[in-house]
């Protein structure tokens, strides 16, 4: 069945003139005759990247978790990233579908002769790479400029911090596991660029599930956590002794702010600013 689909798509593609070609994150070469005018995005960070490059108007469908900018909320929702609604996507007649590698719909969508570009930004360098690739795909030439301004804004946020804030030891909790954001995660990288130290070393991976004892032992100066996970943090056994808990140095981010912080996308600068604000407010004695 798959072979027939491949043949069919190859036959159709033979009639197209190769205008744009790029290699996506799978290493697959994707060819398009013209810059796509109808785009479906199944990853919030990719949605935001497309809009940052000024091509928001070309989006015809997004996943249910994409919520920025506000205009995309009016677009038809085609399922989630992991569980896309294939029928809805096909009904929108997109020129290209953007999604992450972990999505289950890739094979199905390709079998239906849709152009699929897999991009999955996981850290700062990825954001630049994804912006470049999207720039190539969309035919937008100032992608590098967009990246430079984002990058510069992050540096500016770092510089805006008062000197005493450097080397604050931070614990970023992602989830109630407790799952922490390590040095090699996106949030960890942002923290590092701001000059703060992460109590979770890179050796433990990007999102390790920690023994709560570890956090108590590490005694962080500041805790960053989403509002939802923050419930009952002070009541966790032994945690009342942690410096950050004792002195009330906990930054609780709203769901919207959490979205900004965890998505490796063009809003990185805003993420850096949010963290810098938190550090400026709560890190100093």
């Amino acid at each position, binding site marked *: 069945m798959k072979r027939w689909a491949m043949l069919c798509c190859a036959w159709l593609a033979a009639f197209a003139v190769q205008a744009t070609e790029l290699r996506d994150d799978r290493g697959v070469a994707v060819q398009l005759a013209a810059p796509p005018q109808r785009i479906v995005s199944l990853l919030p960070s990719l949605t935001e990247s497309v809009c940052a490059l000024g091509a928001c108007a070309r989006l015809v469908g997004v996943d*249910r*978790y994409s919520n920025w900018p506000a205009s995309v909320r009016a677009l038809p929702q085609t399922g*989630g990233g992991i569980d896309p609604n294939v029928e809805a996507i096909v009904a929108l007649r997109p020129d290209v579908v953007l999604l992450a590698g972990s999505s289950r719909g890739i094979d199905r969508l390709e079998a239906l002769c849709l152009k699929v570009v897999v991009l999955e930004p996981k850290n700062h360098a990825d954001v630049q790479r994804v912006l470049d690739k999207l720039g190539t795909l969309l035919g937008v030439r100032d992608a590098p400029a967009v990246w430079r301004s984002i990058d510069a804004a992050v540096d500016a946020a770092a510089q805006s911090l008062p000197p005493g804030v450097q080397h604050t030891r931070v614990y970023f909790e*992602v*989830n*109630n*596991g*407790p*799952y922490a954001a390590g040095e090699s995660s996106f949030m960890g990288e942002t923290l590092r660029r701001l000059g703060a130290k992460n109590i979770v070393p890179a050796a*433990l*991976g990007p999102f*390790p*599930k*920690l*023994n*709560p*004892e*570890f956090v*108590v*032992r590490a005694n962080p100066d500041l805790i960053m956590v*989403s*509002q*939802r*996970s923050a*419930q*009952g943090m002070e*009541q*966790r*056994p*032994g945690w009342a*002794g942690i410096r950050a808990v004792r002195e009330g140095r906990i930054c609780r981010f709203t*769901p919207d702010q*959490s979205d900004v912080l965890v998505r490796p996308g063009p809003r990185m600068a805003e993420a850096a600013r949010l963290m810098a604000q938190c550090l400026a407010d709560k890190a100093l004695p």
Partner: protein
Amino acid sequence: MLLVAALLLLALGAGIGSTGFDSIWRLRDDPVALQIVRDIRLPRTLGAWLAGALLGLAGAVAQGLFRNPLADPYLLGSASGASMGVAVALLLFGTSPTSTQWVVRLGLTGAAFVGAVLAVLLTLTLARGVQQTLRLLLAGVIVGVVLGAVKDLISIASVDIMQALTGFMLGSTGLLGWGACGVMAALGAACLLLGWALAPLLDALALGEATARSLGLPLPAMRAALVGVLALATGAAVAQTGLIAFVGLAAPHLVRSIVKTTHARLIVLSALMGGLLLMAADLGARWLIAPQELPVGVLTAVLGGSYLLWLMHRRGARGGAA
């Protein structure tokens, strides 16, 4: 027989000091850290034992009540009820932390407990009483599936909720404090006493329902009480530690493989065995990839499952006696 189990318990219990990612002797130099760690490790290990005991007790009751060796404490929909309770609580917390005050105070653990008990009540209503076992089991399956679907619906609404729920459903002994231990100990003692007192019903039921009735036992009342014990024990454990699979299923089997006895003893021994199992799994979860943690449910499955597999293999090799 009882002594063997108790001794094994003590031996492992003495090992709690050497867990964690640091060795215990470094601890003696640092009195403050020592105190903190005792505040975490001791209640956690004790809590794991208590939760395991509750689950083992519930498993023995379930297997006796339904006369089915594959029964586990989550049969009457309590697992799905607890998950749904947590999902609903997460949903409500998300809208505004101060909106529904009593829900906030109840907390996630309270939500899980309420959810579990409500699910069992729903199952009982659907089955119209505890009279017919088959109807009860069927109702339990239905309630489990329906509540599970509701939970899935809620979790799709937000990635946050989905993540938190997955954490809950994997089960964790990580955040057990003295308060949790207290609650579990109180409920555990009550359930154990009640279960032990009602155990003759389970023995009589094993001979057939008509025989049990002919022996003058008030079947409906006792059965209802046993279902109550099941719901309470399961709800208490799930509320504190999330869904830890396999302990309730494996503990009675493990006990039966060592000694054949009446249900009164079986319930007590299953509780001890369950406590042992979960405590061992908790130690392993903490120690194997320190300072990271494995989900404790994975370890209970590995520990309990591999022993049961070995038992099956041994029984098969012997040719399967009558």
